[in-house]
Each structure stands twice: as structure tokens, then as C-alpha cells.
């Protein structure tokens, strides 16, 4: 059949030649400029040869050098890395356990616990921060890196659990039964079969938590002691006494680190050969 000739005019009608969606493009450009210009400025001026924060006068690594000779900032960096690492391990261990418990516990309690678990995700961080501070003060605990770790772990467990929960729910219960059928105890079945199956999601959530905690300011600000302070808090304090371009260098390094980590978190599931990758929100 000769379709094109016999088609009714209605089917052939178009709204004229397609024009470029100028408005949409403009909005998109403005959006990205507003979003990334300040960050781009920080990166650019971290390589400035002069102290000026407004005029770029040639490329230099002097501010990076200055940072690596600044013992206070280095101390803060060390503390932030330490806090992030401990918070990552602590919240992953507890979060995975919570996810397993929430999915497997049959009964009303699991539902309530699941709801309560979501609360930290929607509570304004400043409320969590103030609450943690009041708690530590009330208990007479000295604020130091330990209190920051505890607060960060408390805050991060929910993220791990949210990511892991759907993965745990998607596990085939027969696989763990098969392990027990083949002579494994309950604990061995968990260690040899269930945790390996969850490994991609566990690693992804670990990297995410590390990045979130490393960058965190609010909770750290309320729960840290005086010396050393986490990097984010230290930078804030430093800025109050006048902005040094060293801060730009630190900011650029943090940015690079965060991008690497988030990239890693997204890439991990692919490295394990899972199709489609991992959605950080649903963990699927």
C-alpha cells in the first residue's frame, strides 16, 4: 500500500519547522552559572599567584604549599579524615545490622522502627546539632573528636539503612536457607552468603557516608572541642579573621576529594557487574 500519498492531511501536519527552545536553554545556562560560578572562582583563585581574591595574576601553587605547611589546618584535615573513617565504619556496621533487622523482623515493631529511623533524615541538622550538644553537656562529656564521631554516626545510620533496606528486602531468603541446608550456622550463612551479596551496596553507602561526614559542618560545629577542629569548622573560623587564599586551596582539594568519592560510590555497583548501577536514594 502507498501510505505517504494516501495519508490524510491531519497526519502530515506539523507545527512548522522546529525552533530552538531559546528560553529553556537560557534558564539552564543561568542555573548552571549560578550553581558553579562561585565554585569555579574558588578553584581559579586557589591557583592565583597573588593574594588578591578579585584579580587573577598568574598561575601558582603557593597556596597549596602554604596549606601543607600550616600545621593547624593539617591537624584539622587529619581529624576530619579520622572522624569520617570512624563514622563510616560505625554507621555502616550499625546501619547494615538495622537494615537486616528491620526487613526480617516480622511484626508491628519493625514498622515503627522503620518510621523512627527516617526521622534523622528529615530533622533539620541544626536541631540534631543542638540536641547533641545539650546531651553531651548534660552528661558532662568533654567535647572532642569522640563526640563528633558519636554525633556523626547517629546521624549517618539512617542513610546506610535506607540504602541497604531495599537491597536486603530484594534478597532471596532461600539463598540463606541454602547455606544453612549445606551445613552453615546462621552466623556463617550471614557472613558467607548474605554480606557478600550486599557488598556493592555496603561499599557504596560507606563511600557516601565518608563524603557526607567529611564535608559536614553543622553537626561538627556543635559537637567539636576547641583544638583540633574538623576541617570544615576550622575553615569557618579562619574566614572570620579574614580570608586567606589558602582556604581556596583547601576548598579545591575537598572538592576534588568529594567528587572522587561520589564517583566511586556510583561506580562500585558497575565494578561488581550489576546492570543499571546503584541509585543512592533507593539503593537499587
Amino acid at each position, binding site marked *: 500500500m502507498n501510505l505517504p500519498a494516501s495519508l490524510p492531511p491531519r497526519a502530515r501536519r506539523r507545527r512548522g519547522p522546529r525552533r530552538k527552545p531559546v528560553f529553556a536553554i537560557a534558564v539552564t545556562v543561568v542555573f548552571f552559572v549560578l550553581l558553579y560560578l562561585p565554585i569555579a572562582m574558588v578553584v581559579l583563585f586557589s591557583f592565583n599567584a597573588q593574594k588578591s581574591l578579585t584579580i587573577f595574576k598568574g598561575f601558582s601553587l603557593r597556596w597549596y604549599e602554604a596549606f601543607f605547611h600550616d600545621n593547624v589546618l593539617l591537624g584539622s584535615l587529619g581529624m576530619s579524615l579520622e572522624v569520617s573513617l570512624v563514622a563510616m565504619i560505625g554507621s555502616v556496621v550499625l546501619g547494615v545490622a538495622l537494615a537486616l533487622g528491620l526487613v526480617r523482623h516480622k511484626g508491628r515493631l519493625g514498622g515503627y522502627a522503620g518510621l523512627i529511623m527516617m526521622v534523622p533524615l528529615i530533622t533539620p541538622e541544626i536541631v540534631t546539632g543542638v540536641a547533641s550538644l545539650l546531651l553531651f553537656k548534660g552528661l558532662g562529656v568533654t567535647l572532642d573528636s569522640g563526640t563528633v564521631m558519636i554525633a556523626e554516626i547517629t546521624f549517618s545510620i539512617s542513610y546506610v539503612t535506607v540504602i541497604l533496606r531495599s537491597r536486603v528486602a530484594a534478597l*532471596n531468603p*532461600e*539463598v540463606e*536457607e*541454602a*547455606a*544453612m*541446608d*549445606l*551445613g*552453615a*550456622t*546462621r552466623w*556463617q550463612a550471614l557472613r*558467607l*552468603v548474605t554480606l*557478600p*551479596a550486599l*557488598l556493592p551496596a555496603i561499599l557504596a553507602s560507606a563511600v557516601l557516608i565518608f563524603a557526607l561526614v567529611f564535608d559536614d559542618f553543622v553537626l561538627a560545629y556543635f559537637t567539636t572541642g576547641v583544638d583540633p577542629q574538623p576541617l570544615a569548622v576550622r575553615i569557618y573560623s579562619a574566614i572570620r579573621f579574614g580570608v586567606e587564599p589558602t582556604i581556596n586551596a583547601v576548598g579545591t582539594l575537598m572538592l576534588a576529594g568529594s567528587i572522587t568519592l561520589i564517583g566511586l560510590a556510583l561506580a562500585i555497583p558497575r565494578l561488581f*557487574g550489576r546492570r543499571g548501577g546503584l541509585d543512592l536514594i533507593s539503593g537499587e
Partner: protein
Amino acid sequence: MTPTAATPAVRLDHVSKEFNGSHAVRDLELDIAAGEFFSLLGPSGCGKTTTLRMIGGFADPTEGAVLLSGEDVTALPPNKRNVNTVFQSYALFDHLSVADNIGFGLKRKGVPKPEIRERVGAMIDLVQLGGMAERKPRTLSGGQRQRVALARALVNRPAVLLLDEPLAALDLKLRRQMQVELKQIQREVGITFVFVTHDQDEALTMSDRVAVMNGGRVEQCGTPEDVYERPESRFVAAFMGTSNLVGGVYRDGTVQLEGGPALPVGRRPEIGEGSQVDVSIRPEKIWLSDFEPGMPVVNGVIRETVYSGPTTTYLIELAPGVTVAALEQNTARARMEDRWAGGETVELGYDPEHCLVLSH
């Protein structure tokens, strides 16, 4: 094979299982002999999988005891029982290679590495997975995954192998092939197989004995021939393949259909005169020609002709609203033009022995 005086491989002693107040399994009494291929057959929800899980240790009986080779294992967890399971989903360990999947149980038992390698290798050959040892389960086809699951269980040389609808996920052709292979493997290794299925063909083809389950009870337990040819209940008659059920009144060795003929069914002393009964007869037991001498013959009208390759099924009306199916083989001698058409009146012959009379 029937259970001998020897200790049964599996004994279920008045086993019941309740879930939230409703019975999944009721007062089950079952002996499964060593070396037997035993099937639990029934529709979904009949309690067959629950029964299997209680033997495997994945479900605790509410009442009664599970005995394996005479030993009470009711309180033992799965890892302490000398049984292994082939799960319906196969439940393979995706992060382990085929060889490591199969060797998992031996490794847990602390079998020396060289022996593990040897036994895994032998098992890979048995289930015809040569060359797949280092592959990951995800890269295998459904049939191959099924073989891995079977090998993983068999390599432990359990006293009893439990199979939970292991062929359900395979396509028809592969399923037929695996049925034959499974049966061969079972003969080769001599291990007791307890096989759960809802497919009556599968149960008939493979089993030494079949227990037909319904509503948490065993309706009938016997050889495939027993349960197919001599069903003891309406349920078994209906579940084991197509069966005609015709209602009428029993009187003096016949069943009088309402508005139709009286069907001679032979003397049934256990049935009261004048009581309402159902007559059940299999479609392939009805003759449409070449009657034997002395065979009861009744008239009917062809209502439908259903051709399905090797056989043709006729739906024949005996009385208003009473239709039976009759199956004819399309053998070399049967020609197309010999087939009856709708509306024709035919004679149906049968042997009263093949009639099952069920009182209400």
C-alpha cells in the same frame, strides 16, 4: 517399591503445622523408604512445600515428630540434618563460581581440599556441566543453574534429597529432558528423593510412589498407577488428569442419569440403594468403536471435537446438561474422515471396572 520393614529414610509421625491458627499440614503420617523416589503432589496451598520444609528443618512442626533414618530430628536445625535441598529458585550463591557453589557444603564440613576438588569434579561430570566450573551462576542458563543446584546438594551424599518444584522454572521441553535425567541420576546415586510438584505428569513419570495432598492432608498415597487408575477420592480423581464426573442415582448395579440412560457400573455393596452418587471415568477409558463383547454401551451426541495432535477429544452429551469427554488415539489406522462431527449420535462403551463410584 513399597515401604519395607526396614527403617524408613523419612518418617512423619502425626505431624501438624499451624500458621496463625490455620492448618497448613494436618496430622500427617508418612513413611518414605530408603532409595525411594517419592513425590508430594498437590495444588498450591495443599501443604506439600510446608511438609518438605519440615523435613529440611526450615519449619518447625506445631505437633508431631520428624524422623530421619529412625532418629528424631524435630528439634535439630537444618545444618544438623543429613538432608539437602534443591530450592525452587535454585538459591545459588551468585558471588561464588560453579565449583565453589558445589563445594560449599563439603567445605563447611571440613572435608580436605583435594577430596573436595575430586568430588566436585565428579559431580560436575554427573550433571554434565563440564567446562563450567569457573563460571559465575549469573552467566548460566536456567537449565544449567538447575544442574548446579542439584550438584550442590548431591555432592554432600545426603540420606535424603529434598526437591522443591525444581523444574517449575524450566520450559516444557527442558523440563521433560530434566525429568528423565533426574530419574537417571537418582538411580545412579541411590539417594532417597522427596520431590514436591504440582504437575501430575511429572509425579507420574518420575516417582516410585506419589502422595496426593489436599488441604494439608494426604488424600491418597501409592504407586503412580494406584493413584491414577484407582483414585480413592473425588479430589484425587479430578486432580490426576482429566476425569469425567457424572451425577446420578445408584440402583442395582447401575447409575441412573437424570433424563438419560442408566450406566451399568457393577455391583457396589458399599453404596446404598437409591443414594445420590457421582461416577468418575477417565476419557481414555471410554471406547467409541470396536467394543469388546459384553461391554456396556450407551448412546450420546457429539457436541465438540477437539483435535490436539496425537489425540482427539470428543465432548459427548449423555443426557441434557451431562457431558463426558472421550479420548481417541489418532493412530495410523484412524483416518481423518473417520472422525465424528458435531451432532452425530455415537455409541460409548466402557468397562464398569474403570468406573469410580463416589457417594455424596
